[in-house]
């Protein structure tokens, strides 16, 4: 990708906004780091500091029971000067990661995969936003900015996922798989993106003389993911000296021992749960989360990029420790489908719901935690509204894309009212 002047200006402006926020409001990074909407137990910057401190003092970072993030983040951050004394380096790192994500997003947008994939071309393909606008929507999204200022480690996952998709649309399946395994290494859940991503790679691969079969292609990619994932994990075990990190990182994601409130739906449910049902419902919740993968991949075989978008939206709602960082990733991918926006029916409703939840969430959290005049139900009610808004948005986007496909298959149905059964 060549960076022309407009894009350079965009990146400069995005970086400037972030630097301005970092420097002119010195209390803001600390404030946002402490917000439950941004920092979850598995991504929090504060917990990273704790892990880093233990790591630098030659204690296992997982001993305190506070740090649940991937071990390879520790050497990365201990290379930087300490964020307590020289915070500028940390700020620059996070700004850089945001810009890298934007570059990946520009690549995805420029490929045109969203409007015209190998098996399907939308009749509305003329109406799309430029990659510049899509990158701007990502970089100036308040959620993205708040995430960057709050410095959770989920931005690395975001960046890795976007790069995996960007490499996949360029046909570099091996790089894409490596990026995916890096994302999965950091946050585990991105491994669920493997099936659509492999299909995306398959669709976009460079034409060979003797085309590969899909099954062998997918198996090859699976081996690549497995291999790179294993090497990352092995490196981690060399760094920490044991394999104990597995239970402190991925075990926490799977078994949900930390019930700190967040914007998701799990914490309240598992607070209320009787212990005897806990394992059963953990299974149910995880199966529910992963069940979308197969169904959507099969149904939307012709548009694997949309499957990825939709899955990111679903993960932002249903994963164990979601934050607004996941929402910002979904909202970054959604503008790629600008051409189906006219087919969506509840955009105003969904966006108003999300806006309401964005304002009422902190207000109710304040009433619960600080003023003491509310209780946990206040905040949980708002997370339900938030999830409702997001699920309206995802399902409406799905409806629009299916409608778009239908109009290609059955041109006579164009403009007619249809009913979903």
């Amino acid at each position, binding site marked *: 990708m060549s960076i022309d002047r407009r894009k350079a200006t965009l990146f400069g402006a995005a970086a400037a906004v972030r630097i301005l926020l970092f420097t002119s409001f010195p209390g803001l990074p600390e404030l946002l780091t402490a917000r439950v909407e941004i920092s979850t137990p598995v991504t929090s910057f504060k917990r990273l500091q704790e892990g880093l401190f233990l790591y630098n003092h030659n204690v296992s970072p997982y001993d305190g029971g506070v740090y649940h993030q991937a071990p390879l983040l520790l050497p990365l951050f201990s290379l930087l000067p300490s964020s307590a004394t020289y915070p500028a380096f940390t700020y620059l790192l996070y700004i850089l990661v945001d810009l890298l994500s934007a570059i990946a997003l520009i690549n995805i947008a420029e490929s045109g995969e969203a409007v015209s994939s190998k*098996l399907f071309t939308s009749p509305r393909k003329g109406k799309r936003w430029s990659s510049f606008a899509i990158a701007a929507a990502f970089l100036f999204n308040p959620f993205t900015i708040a995430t960057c200022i709050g410095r959770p480690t989920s931005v690395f996952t975001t960046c890795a996922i976007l790069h995996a998709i960007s490499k996949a649309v360029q046909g570099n399946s091996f790089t894409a798989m490596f990026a995916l395994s890096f994302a999965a290494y950091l946050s585990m859940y991105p491994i669920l993106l493997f099936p659509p991503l492999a299909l995306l790679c398959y669709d976009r691969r460079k034409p060979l003389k003797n085309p590969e079969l899909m099954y062998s292609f997918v198996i090859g990619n699976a081996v690549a993911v497995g291999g790179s994932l294993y090497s990352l994990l092995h490196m981690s075990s060399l760094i920490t000296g044991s394999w104990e990190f597995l239970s402190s990182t991925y075990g926490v994601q799977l078994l949900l021992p930390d019930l700190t409130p967040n914007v998701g739906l799990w914490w309240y449910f598992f607070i209320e749960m009787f212990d005897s049902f806990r394992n059963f419902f953990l299974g149910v919740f995880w199966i529910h989360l992963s069940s979308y993968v197969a169904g959507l*991949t*099969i*149904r*939307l*075989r*012709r548009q694997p990029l949309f499957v990825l978008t939709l899955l990111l939206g679903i993960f932002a709602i249903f994963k164990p420790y979601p934050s607004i960082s996941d929402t910002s990733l979904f909202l970054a991918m959604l503008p790629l489908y600008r051409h189906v926006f*006219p*087919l969506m*029916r509840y955009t*105003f409703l969904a966006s*108003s719901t999300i*806006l*309401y939840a964005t*304002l*009422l969430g902190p*207000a*109710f959290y*304040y*009433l619960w935690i*600080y*003023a*003491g*005049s509310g209780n946990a139900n206040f905040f949980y009610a708002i997370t339900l509204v938030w999830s409702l808004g997001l699920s309206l948005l995802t399902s409406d986007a799905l409806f629009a894309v299916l409608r778009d496909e239908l109009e290609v298959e059955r041109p006579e149905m164009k*403009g*007619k*009212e249809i009913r979903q*059964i």
Partner: protein
Amino acid sequence: MPPSLPQFSAARARSYIFRLPLFTRCIILVIVLLWLVSLQSAWDVQQWGALIPKEIGLATMYRTNTFPLVHANFFHAFMNILALTPLLERFEAEFGTLTTLALFLGPLSTIPALLYTFLERLIGFNTTVLGASIWAFTLLAMEAVKTYRTNPHFTIGTTQIPTWITPLVVVLFVSFLIPNTSFLGHCCGLAFGYGWGLGYLKFLAPPEWILRWIEGKLNLLGRLPHYVSVDQKTYGRYGVLPTTAPADPTSSVLLRRNPIILKLPPYLSFLCIVIGVAWLLVLPLDNYSRRTYISENALLPAQVHTYFAGSDQNVFRGYKREVDALGERSNIEVNDKLEEFFKASGLKVARQSYEYKSAGETYAGENIYAILHAPRGDATEAIVLVGGWKNMDGELNRSGVALILTLARYFKRWSLWSKDIIFLVTADSKAGPQAWVDAYHDTHQSDKVDSLPLKSGALQGAVVIDYPFDHRFESIHIVYDGINGQLPNLDLLNTVVSISGHMGIGASLQQMWHHSDSYKDRLQTMLRGMMNQGLGHASGPHSSFIPYHVDAITLQPYGEGWQDEMAMGRVIESTFRSLNNLLEHLHQSFFFYLLMQADRFVSIGTYLPSAMLVAVNFTIMAIFLWVKSGSPIEKSSKVGSTIEGGEKQPLAIVQERNAKALVPAENLAVRERELFLPLAVVAGSQFLGVLPLYIFNHTSQAMLHPIFAAFTSINGFFPLILSALITHYFAPTAHHYTLIKTFSLLILGLFLSSLATLNFSLAFLVGLLSAPLTYVQPLPNHPIIKGILAVILSALSPTTVLVAGCWWWELSVGEVLKEAAFGWDVWGMNTQVVVWCVWWPAWLVGMMLLVGSPMEEKVGVDGDVRKAKMIMS
């Protein structure tokens, strides 16, 4: 044909049940009868009829025929009838009653049963099976094979799935989801069904000539009702019933374009405002407000005997003489003396100095406090007794401080305290308490405010004495408003009211010195309370405690009466005894309430709807305008265009199942909305709000008044300039103006409903003052009305309201702004944020809308307005 799900209709269900053929009816009847028989306990029907693999012999062969008819319980029977009836009905209608009879009493039951028995014996199990589900699956498999012939695949994405596997999926689902179902039994049924469907088992059916012969001989068709003849297969007897789906004119599309519904929202939102206000006005009535009550049982107010009397009065007089003598001495000298007194009482003393700068002035002083360590406690909890050396009006708190000194000496003698007691004398009543509380919780800015050298446990409550005169008093005035409209727990207030009531001292609120318990007085108390809450300023030294979740109130004796300072002391003593009893932080009673008088209140559930209704009015209007902005462009000469213009409008056909309607194609179009300019305008004006917020909080006191005057005058014509600029550069159309209003109202509604949960009164006041914004729109053709409306709207601008408020309460604008800046800098008050970043931008946009002049819209091929698209959604 795409599959369609018929809507349920009772008439169709009834006719379906009446049309059930004979054999199906018989089977249902037999199943029900056998279930009824199984209710008695003398004869075990299940044991008699079930298919038990180990018991199958020649004599018990009957079981292979009876087992589908016998069921375990009502639920089992009911579900199986439900599953079986439609399938059996189709089978019978296709093959005729006689064939069905022969098959179901013969091979259709026996062969799967024998297969099952064989398999069970082979693997060495002995699982009993019961019920008609095996038939249901057999029939389902037959149907599936039939479907497969006509419609071999269904497609999901790009994958083609053969239709014949559906019954297998159903079997798996049933065996997973329903307990105690026999997977093997169902599979045997399926196997037979597939065999039949594929034609391998057709030989089992009795030959047709025999059936015809029997039918002819017995004249079954004539004698038996609902009999299906062998000849009349496949619906022959009934024909295909006409599908009588009624036309449904209230479909979503037609509803959305319903002119009546489109006209409704403005009235609806007006109704919301009216109800919201009326709601508030009925609250003081007996039926809507409640009497207060003590929720926390541990408090036990006025249940203890108070001993503060007698010789302590002499001590008090002595201390008061000392305080009077200190009079106008400097802060340090006063504190030196006070430290002596506290030390003489045997308490630990510490001091804290602070300095704040706000609006160019410096507020500095030194607080002094003493800690009484609880003889029966572990220093984890503390109660605070506060007195400002000067009260809020700047008077010397002579009796108050003397009383604190006396009570410190008196409390020290008692051994019953289980919580530490902190006696705090602050230099003033505004900055001092804030500095002390901030430092107590380590949230102070350490370069200006000293840290506390001495601390105790978590603060459980604080009581402030404001007693600046030395004559006898009549009643106690209780001040309870905190910063930003937060309130202390109602239990604390109730405790004091109940204690003073027991001592024969009256209690009043909100400066209602003479409360006659009439509607008017109650309303006035409530409105004064709302005003204080809405302004969000500190109304006494206690206000600074409340943001830290420390319940606090100020007690001010007033009037001329016969109560002396010892009575006041006894009220404090009794209150402290009650607080001393607390087992946990005050949490039982309400944190959100409006008080009508000392013993009457309404809780949040009762009053919140009024503010919410006012906020919802904006949201309703925003949604309405959004829908409206999506409707097609209105022609300027719309009236009678179809008749006079002679130009035919394009018509579109709306099909609702069988009903078709011709509607103008325009009505169905959804217009592409142009969002960029409206979003930019609304976001821009929101950001502009930061400007006055910054200016008024960072100007020195002398400049506040002139700057405010300048800002007010600029504010008068600023919207005109802004509107002219936008018109000049962007040429917005009426469509843009509608969208600008949509977003502005949406944001206003959003902020106000969030705010209503935090500070009800402020949200209500701002909502009420900006209610006219719901109805403003550009009036390019009516300059006079526009002028009048602009004047009215200007009268409701934040600046004008501020000036009017100052005039009404006889305050100087400069003082109010100085107080506001002080609140921002010291108390962390955020009323200004709401005024300048929520209310003012909304007003600005409203004013811009009013003076705006929309361009004529072009219905062109391209240009500003893209062609309306034909999208029905």
